[in-house]
């Protein structure tokens, strides 16, 4: 029982850490999904994580868009503003609590990609419209639906659409018509990023070179270059996570091995009796391994449940989003495949931990054990 508890605690720890880290890395990767196959243009001094500028100056909208539009090989240009989140005190959190994008209305569907719109959703009339769309998680938290009114920085905005998507970032996102976003957040004619779609057969790389040559104050990045920026960071995060998981697994292995060695030692007489009755060594081996397998299955199952719950609680604490809102999307936070991998790993570790005691039990000299009983 103690062993099952120990394995369950280890599994809880591994799953909570793993799922939380995975959520963070997924959110970071998701940002780039919005700009698949596009070149992103930011100010030269901007610090960028994937496609998201997190510092540096903004770009003047019209002159920059005009200059980019006339570069050969440019098919479409979309200026975007990422103004401050609604709750500024939570902006520094790694998983955005609330995220706002100002996008020209004509580009909403192409930037958002395949989202599922809730009832009565419609696009705003123009870029100055006060109509906005909200991600499903954000809308659920605040009880917004089509027709709801929101006050932001003294402006009244009207919800004209609520969408659901598997992307954690978009689910927490407010989409505002570009001009309205610039007005509400007081960034007139300024944007953070310009997404540039290359014409057919024009390599992104060539386009970035052309943009940087034509416009001195911008930096242009291809999808590969954006990925290259965060790849080392994500790789390090994954390495650390793997390291922590490995340490926990090794501790579990030692725990299972130690406890099983003790229980095998306590049951020497049983194993010797089995041996005296002619049980094959494989029978004794199987008996011990089955026991550690069951410890793994039980501890793993309990750990899976408590680990998933812990990951939800952590996500709720880090984002200030009510726990109840996470339950419907629990499988996004702790993906089933990850749970299966961890469960198999835990069971495997437990079986491995049973190997040494099982071999000890097989090699027991029955005459010595039985003689000691007399």
């Amino acid at each position, binding site marked *: 029982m103690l062993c099952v508890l120990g394995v369950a605690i280890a599994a809880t720890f591994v799953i909570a850490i793993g799922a939380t880290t995975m959520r963070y890395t997924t959110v970071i990767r998701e940002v780039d999904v919005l700009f698949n196959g596009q070149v992103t243009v930011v100010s030269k001094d901007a610090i960028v994580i994937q496609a998201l500028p997190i510092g540096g100056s903004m770009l003047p909208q019209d002159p920059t868009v005009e200059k980019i539009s006339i570069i050969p090989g440019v098919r479409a240009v979309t200026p975007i503003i990422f103004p401050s989140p609604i709750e500024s005190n939570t902006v520094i959190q790694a998983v955005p609590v609330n995220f706002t994008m100002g996008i020209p209305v004509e580009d909403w569907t192409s930037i958002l990609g395949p989202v599922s719109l809730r009832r009565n959703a419609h696009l705003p009339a123009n870029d100055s419209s006060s109509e906005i769309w909200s991600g499903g998680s954000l809308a659920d938290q605040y009880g917004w639906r089509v027709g709801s009114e929101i006050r932001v920085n003294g402006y009244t905005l009207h919800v004209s659409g609520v969408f659901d998507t598997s992307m954690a970032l978009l689910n927490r996102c407010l989409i505002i018509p570009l001009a309205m976003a610039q007005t509400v957040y007081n960034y007139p004619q300024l944007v953070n990023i310009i997404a540039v779609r290359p014409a057919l057969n024009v390599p992104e790389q060539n386009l970035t070179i052309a943009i940087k040559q034509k416009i001195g104050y911008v930096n242009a990045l291809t999808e590969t270059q954006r990925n290259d920026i965060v790849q080392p960071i994500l790789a390090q995060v994954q390495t650390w996570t793997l390291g922590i998981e490995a340490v926990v697994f090794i501790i579990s292995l030692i725990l299972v091995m130690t406890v099983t060695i003790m229980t095998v030692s306590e049951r020497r007489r049983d194993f010797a009796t089995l041996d*005296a*009755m*002619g049980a094959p060594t494989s029978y004794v081996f199987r008996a011990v391994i089955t026991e550690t397998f069951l410890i793994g299955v039980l501890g793993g199952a309990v750990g899976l449940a408590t680990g998933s719950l812990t990951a939800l609680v952590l996500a709720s604490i880090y984002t200030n989003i009510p726990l109840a809102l996470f339950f419907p999307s629990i499988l996004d936070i702790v993906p089933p495949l990850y749970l299966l991998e961890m469960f198999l790993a835990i069971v495997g570790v437990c079986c491995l931990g049973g190997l040494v005691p099982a071999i000890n039990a097989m090699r027991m000299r029955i005459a010595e054990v*039985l*003689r000691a009983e007399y």
Partner: protein
Amino acid sequence: MRIRTVNLTRSFHVGSSEIAAVKSVSLNINDPKFVAIIGPSGSGKSTLLNLIGLNDYPTSGQVLINDADASRLANRERRRIRNAHMGFVFQSFNLFPTLSAVENVELPMSLANRSQEEQRERALRLLETVGLTQRRDHRPKQLSMGEMQRVAIARALANKPETIIADEPTGELDSKTAREIISLLRNIYEKEKTTVIVATHDEKIVDVANAVYTMQDGQLKTDI
């Protein structure tokens, strides 16, 4: 089953010295018999039974089972002989605490790959033989000492062994229960024509045995 030992010796290393627990023991059990091996503690009775029961390897000498030298057989073959031809009864019963009485009796048959139906049928019959039909579903801790030893005897009989090896079977029992167990073992010998070899301190066994050997300092003397 004919059991013969020829100059059987078993020594143990204790520190730097070597102690012979069994010294050149030659023993011959041709026909089914009720054999008692008596002697003080430390005289080598249990060591001798472990050698005869193929639970241990001799330092020198031979254990012949049906005239074949079993003392150097591979472990797999020794296990097969133990399972098919021998039954063991221990002083402290050695029942499996998580199994019921009937499951304990079924275990040697399960190891011999008998069918479930056969296991259950024979186990129930054996429990009836030892008078424990009503206690079939009880676990060892729910049984008295005497009942536990009866279950152990039923278990020893599970695979219809030709020899039962009992080491101090009455060692933990009161005198009345001990008499019942001795009587049960004697009945098994008489009805099943099974050789019963008992190592004991218990003088009462001497009265019912038809061959009595005394072990002293690892050496065997014939009394009857």
